[in-house]
């Protein structure tokens, strides 16, 4: 991958997308050995592994484009994943929301994957070669993630009385967090103008069409709340995020440079 010259805007954008993937991957890992069935355990960790792969490429790209830090070093994927503090992470709040029960995890996955599909589809044509490179591979991965989430949301939503109730409760819990993904933002506006970023105004109707079709099939109600929490993109995270980072970063901080 070419290093290119420093470009703080593109670096910040790659970092956001990388943080989204890293944090959701970490959340999904919490299901390891706790899934409802063995097959699903493997499936969830497959999703997590796809997301980790996206995160690695994106954080590497973010480090290259951010340019050298004050010590003259270009920050690596490991520096960015393991040595940043809570306020330096720019992932959307949706990906850090607690797993809750399996229904809530699938609701979160549906809302996020239904965004990632149009995102990576659009970014295949990004003017940043690093981001476009990730997109070509990621679009196939997230298409499967969406398929997986739809399968379970429909199955549980249109299942038994209990599965329907819990699926709706999980959806209600994560729903408000989805809208930060489309919130107007000067950085994204500049990058849409440069042909680097995907346009949220184009993606939101696509996202809504996908999600509402699935919810209809699942006999789930579209939540009516107008509460729109945000702040993740500027480093203001939920209470539980600190615990997530502690688990993610503990080993690297305790044993700097440890590797397989």
């Amino acid at each position, binding site marked *: 991958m070419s290093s290119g010259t420093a470009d703080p805007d593109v670096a910040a954008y790659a970092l956001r997308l990388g943080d989204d993937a890293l944090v959701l991957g970490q959340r999904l890992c919490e299901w390891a050995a706790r899934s409802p*069935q063995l*097959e699903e355990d*493997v*499936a969830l960790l*497959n999703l997590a592994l796809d997301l980790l792969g996206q995160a690695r490429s994106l954080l590497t790209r973010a480090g290259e484009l951010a340019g050298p830090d004050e010590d003259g070093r270009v920050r690596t994927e490991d520096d960015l994943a393991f040595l940043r503090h809570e306020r330096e992470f720019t992932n959307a709040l949706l990906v850090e929301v607690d797993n809750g029960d399996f229904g809530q995890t699938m609701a979160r996955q549906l809302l996020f994957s239904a965004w990632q599909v149009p995102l990576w589809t659009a970014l295949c044509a990004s003017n940043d070669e690093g981001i476009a490179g990730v997109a070509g591979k990621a679009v196939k991965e997230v298409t499967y993630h969406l*398929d*997986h989430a739809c*399968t379970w949301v429909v*199955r549980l939503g249109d299942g038994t009385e209990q599965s329907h109730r819990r699926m709706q409760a999980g959806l209600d819990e994560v729903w408000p967090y989805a809208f930060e993904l489309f919130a107007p933002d000067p950085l994204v506006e500049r990058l849409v103008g440069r042909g680097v970023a995907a346009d949220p105004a184009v993606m939101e109707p696509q996202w809504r069409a996908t999600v509402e079709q699935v919810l209809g099939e699942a006999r789930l109600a579209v939540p009516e709340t107008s509460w729109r929490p945000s702040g993740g993109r500027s480093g203001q995270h939920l209470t539980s995020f600190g615990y997530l980072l502690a688990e993610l970063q503990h080993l690297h901080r305790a044993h700097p440079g440890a590797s397989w």
Partner: protein
Amino acid sequence: MSEGAFTAAGGHGAVPTTGVPSGEGAPARPRAQPLWEVFVRSARGLSHTHVGSLHAPDAHLALRNARDLYTRRQEGVSIWVVPAAEVVASSPDEKDAFFDPAGDKPYRHPTFYSVPDGLTHL
């Protein structure tokens, strides 16, 4: 052990499904999900090969579970899932009648003639 049902589900041999303690007050959960046999084609032009089995409530999820369990390392380009209950198998009791008669007929193997050097597309 005479009363109660047994199952060979999941390849664990005969295991009882009733009368097994499963936590205080909690009723034993039935294994309602049927078993599926999984076949994977590793490349175009090759045949589907049996790779294992899994549990799933229906064909849709069986196919997806098979994708996640058996093709994670690029093992395949196509998957079949077949309900295990639909597989008709020969009985071990019939082994002698089925297979032994072929044992003394080595002339059925193509080993009784020599292939000329340089012959390729045989």
